[in-house]
């Protein structure tokens, strides 16, 4: 029996390696000063920032200056309503020094902040061509998952529930299927309100989760960051343990039906 070691378990977006499977956000904290200790407590190595909040000319410290150098920035295209706007925002983000990562958000419904998959796909195609490491936020859809992969997406980011609702994995069956077929990492984004829900997503086989609201609006964002990190680790270990079990089972001769093929 092999022992599962979570620390050997590396996650890749493009060719960039991550040991943490918890992605975090910056938008909703009562103070930007909480971002750094939250990152430390959660171990998150990739944090999303809305380009619309980035202001190189800011009178005070700009949002980017609150993120330690050791943590990679995942700029997002929040506010874009079309593929074209998302593409332009991505280019501005790169010019602003945010690097090559981009989380595409093309949102056409302000009530639930639901993504437009067609626009998301189009933006992914263009930006992947331009060398971006593209993480598209999407409505869980099997066909679009394949199309995003073909378009060069570095991950698939299906929503668990509408952004900010803390409702958990309302899209569970669809996400489960996406996990089964996706050839790139699957990051459950949006809707995760409790560590137990994050653990559930990871246990189901998600490669990572992105949690913002539940951490940022918690009474103690630092403790919440830690709690989510532990939940993500636990869920991941549980998933790997299951996989190991399945492998063992598959590798064995067929104890029940082997007699049919002597």
């Amino acid at each position, binding site marked *: 029996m092999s022992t599962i070691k979570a620390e050997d378990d590396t996650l890749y977006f493009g060719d960039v390696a991550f040991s943490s499977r918890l992605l975090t956000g910056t*938008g909703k904290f009562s*103070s930007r000063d909480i971002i750094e200790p939250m990152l430390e407590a959660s171990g998150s190595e990739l944090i999303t920032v809305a380009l*619309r909040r980035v*202001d190189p000319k800011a009178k005070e410290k700009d949002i980017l200056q609150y993120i330690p150098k050791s943590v990679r920035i995942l700029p997002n295209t929040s506010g874009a309503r079309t593929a074209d706007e998302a593409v332009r*925002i991505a280019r*501005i983000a790169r010019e602003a020094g945010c690097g090559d990562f981009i989380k595409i958000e093309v949102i056409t419904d*302000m009530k639930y902040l639901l993504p437009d998959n067609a626009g998301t796909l189009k933006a992914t195609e263009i930006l992947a061509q331009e060398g971006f490491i593209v993480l598209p936020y999407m409505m869980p859809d099997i066909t679009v998952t394949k199309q995003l992969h073909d378009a060069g997406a570095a991950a698939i980011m299906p929503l668990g529930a509408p952004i900010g609702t803390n409702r958990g994995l309302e899209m569970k069956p669809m996400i489960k299927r996406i996990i089964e077929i996706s050839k790139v990492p699957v990051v459950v984004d949006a809707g995760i309100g409790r560590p137990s829900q994050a653990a559930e997503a990871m246990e189901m086989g998600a490669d990572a989760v992105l949690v913002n*609201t539940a951490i940022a609006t918690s009474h103690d964002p630092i403790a919440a960051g830690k709690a989510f990190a532990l939940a993500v680790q636990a869920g991941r270990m549980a998933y790997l343990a299951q996989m190991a079990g399945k492998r063992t089972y598959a590798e064995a001769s067929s104890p029940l039906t082997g007699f049919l093929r002597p």
Partner: protein
Amino acid sequence: MSFHDEIIRLDSFDFVEYFRSVRPEDVRNSLDRDEQDQCDLLNLLSLTAQDFLEEMAQKARQMTRQYFGNIISLYAPLYISDHCSNLCTYCGFNAGVDFPRTKLSLEEIEREADAIAATGIRHILLLTGEAPSQTPLSYLEEAVKIMKKYFSSIALEIFPMDEEEYQVLCKAGADSLTVYQEVYDRDIYKEVHPKGRKADYKYRLLTPERGAKTGFRALNIGALYGLGEPRKEACIAALHARWLEQEFPDVEISLSLPRMTRAKGIIEPKNILSDIDFVQFMLAWRLFMPRLGITISTRESAEFRDRLIHLGATRFSSGSKTGVGEYSLKDHDDATVQFEVTDDRSVDEVAEMIRESGYQPVFKDWELV
């Protein structure tokens, strides 16, 4: 189908009688539901619901934090002309009030923009009176282009226009549109807008729709409190907001609650909105529309605004000057203001107060692309 059809439909609805008939158990039921419909909105706006105010506030605060985060966005108004041909009986800028009118030159606009941008403000609201002959489309277009050099979001609060005209301003860089119906009650509307372009109720009512069709990404609407029956006005304003949210799902919708104060040359406010009603309306709106933006201007006092941070507000103006040229060109004493600023703290002071309240002041929340 437009919101005007809704207004006609509402004609036969007796708001006053409905509000009177609301029982505490109705409010209780409305509060306990996960999502609030039109009946719940009415129940939560009723006088009966004031007995549930603290509970409404707790829920509204939790929802606002969840959907918007612990943040308050900041913006500032920039008045570029106080010429006006309307005769709104409640407005200090109306054509019947005799004072030397000012219209800023493009150079002066740039100086004002520079002064505002130096305070850290990145979202600007550009305002004029309604005098297209003084402030034609070409002038407004140039003004928007100047704003683009200094700000990352440009909102307009100008006279209602046709779609083609809005297209010109959108193309120049404007992204948001503010237009208040002033009063949804059609009879009172007629009474307080006796003459001029603004006398056309329907044209004004459909302005947000035209704006949304043009491509503005955000709309800010509302009534002016002090004209019609406040509960009814608050209800129709919220119904208007939800109608726009359904018709134009890709547009962000906000409501404001400007309240009339007494001023020279204008009518005595009829229905002064009390603080408790003001807060109740905000809370009822928040429960009715979780993602609704709620904008609070400096008409409100510093002490009151400090409280509103916790009660569902999402956006504050700050460091506001409400007279033309007041940021860099003339002293307050020499300016004629549209309304007296009650919260006269600087941008820095407001930002500090927001921080002390446990919220993050956000200066930039848009990128013009």
